[in-house]
């Protein structure tokens, strides 16, 4: 591969990655095909695509939770085998341990590394404070709001100081205001400690507002990466303000021109597959 030199410096490199699922009826479903993607250290990349196109699948491959049928995954120049130890993963669904308090949930990542539990809890308390939940340390997840749970999740991942941050529609289920507040919180934390970020979202505005680069995936199956835009907006950014800028609007219009047809295709395909044998 000619990308060998690039992959040496990149935090994450997916080269020609194809992911397939074996179906119950014996068939094979190719979710993602020939995907090329690379994230530099400290770079914030957003992936946008219609629902069901394989965004979570791609993240799972980068996390090492799923293996690619073809292609290679390289992490800081080394081929990935097994779980990606350099990455932290904020999942799409609820992933906090319901039987642990917020504090215990955050501390666990250090405790399993063998950090003394008292030190781990002290640092977990600091992290809870920095995501604005210092007073909620002893609450169980079900006693927290959706946004608060995501904050705990963020602290749980960041306390291990991963070099790579994988985020799967992390603010998806939250209301509009909370999403923006969370976006700003994320940018603050990221500015303080620059990690390579791979941020999946279905919200193009969110992608542009947060990322250095926006990557668009086509509708599945055999989804591909069909576009790649650099976001020329200056940092530090404020999510509330940035949406008012002309550059933001121009870029949004340009990307949406490509994304729109894929979103429509995505809907038609899922509608078509529901009609089953009709096609």
């Amino acid at each position, binding site marked *: 591969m000619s990308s060998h030199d690039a992959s040496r410096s990149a935090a994450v490199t997916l080269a020609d990655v194809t992911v397939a699922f074996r179906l119950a009826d014996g068939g094979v479903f190719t979710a993602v095909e020939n995907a090329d993607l690379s994230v530099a250290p400290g770079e914030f990349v957003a992936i946008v695509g219609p629902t069901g196109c394989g965004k979570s699948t791609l993240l799972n491959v980068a996390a090492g939770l799923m293996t690619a049928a073809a292609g290679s995954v390289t992490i800081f120049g080394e081929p990935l085998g097994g779980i990606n130890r350099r*990455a932290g993963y904020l999942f799409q669904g609820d992933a*906090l341990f319901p039987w642990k308090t917020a504090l215990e949930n955050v501390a666990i990542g250090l405790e399993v590394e063998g950090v003394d539990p008292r030190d781990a809890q002290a640092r977990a308390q600091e992290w809870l404070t920095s995501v604005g939940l210092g007073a909620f340390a002893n609450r169980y997840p*079900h006693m927290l709001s959706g946004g608060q749970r995501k904050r705990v999740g963020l602290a749980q991942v960041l306390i291990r100081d991963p070099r790579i941050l994988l985020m799967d529609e992390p603010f998806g289920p939250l209301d509009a205001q909370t999403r923006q507040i969370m976006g700003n919180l994320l940018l603050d934390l990221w500015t303080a400690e620059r990690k390579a970020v791979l941020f999946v979202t279905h919200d193009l505005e969110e992608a542009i507002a947060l990322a250095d680069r926006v990557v668009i995936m086509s509708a599945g199956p055999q989804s591909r990466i069909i576009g790649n835009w650099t976001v020329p907006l200056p940092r530090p950014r404020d999510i509330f303000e940035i949406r008012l800028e002309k550059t933001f609007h121009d870029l949004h219009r340009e990307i949406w021109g490509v994304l729109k047809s894929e979103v429509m295709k995505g809907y038609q395909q899922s509608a078509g597959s529901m009609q089953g044998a009709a096609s």
Partner: protein
Amino acid sequence: MTRVRLLMWQVLVGVTLIGLWQLLTTVPIFGVTLLPPFFFSTPEKVIERIIKWFVEGTIWKHLAITLTEAILAFVIGSLGGALIGFWFARQQMVAAVFDPYVKMMNALPRVVLAPIFALWLGLGIWSKVALGITLVFFVVFFNVYQGVKETSSTLVDNARMLGMSERQLLRHVYWPSALSWMFSSLHTSVGFAVVGAVVGEYLGSAAGLGYLIQQAEGTFDVAGVFAGMTVLALFVIVIDLLVTKVERRLLVWRPNASAERI
């Protein structure tokens, strides 16, 4: 409904039923006593009998024995059910091999085992404990098995990404998940432990609440039978209250168990 009102209604229902019982057994209606006291006794006599048992202190020995048997059956049955359920859920091969046998054993009515246990273990407490275990074990086993198998895959993925080894995964994810399922079946399994003990005593023993009821039946002492059943019912309610208390403490992290809304 507030707690006080609820309690008032509950008491009212109880008093009405007992009142009706007293009425129908003592006052003839159109010259016929609907519930002849010989077959149905009367509340008066039953209460008298219960008081006598407690005053003379004979009842304590029987209560203690039934309680001991139930506790032993519960502890051993739960422990066995949890461990084996956990093991089967993590080793699908083992589960597949044993599946038909587990189903067969569970389908077996436990009463038929009582004489065998009496033969093997004698008429002391252990044959009753064994009967209780066969009941408790399967409740806990199925719950834990299901609980571990249905542990959220996102939770497991998250644990892996947080750097947990297989052993840490067992300890921090699968085991708590299994325990929470075991606790959610606490009422059922405790109830079964008591049933096992009492049925075992009923079918052959020298002490316990089941024995008490069986003795009374043997001599057509209907008041004794009802008195025994009443004490048994109260016994079960007290245990159930304790279980609810324990459950509240163990499952504080559960959405409903700790929901002390104001």
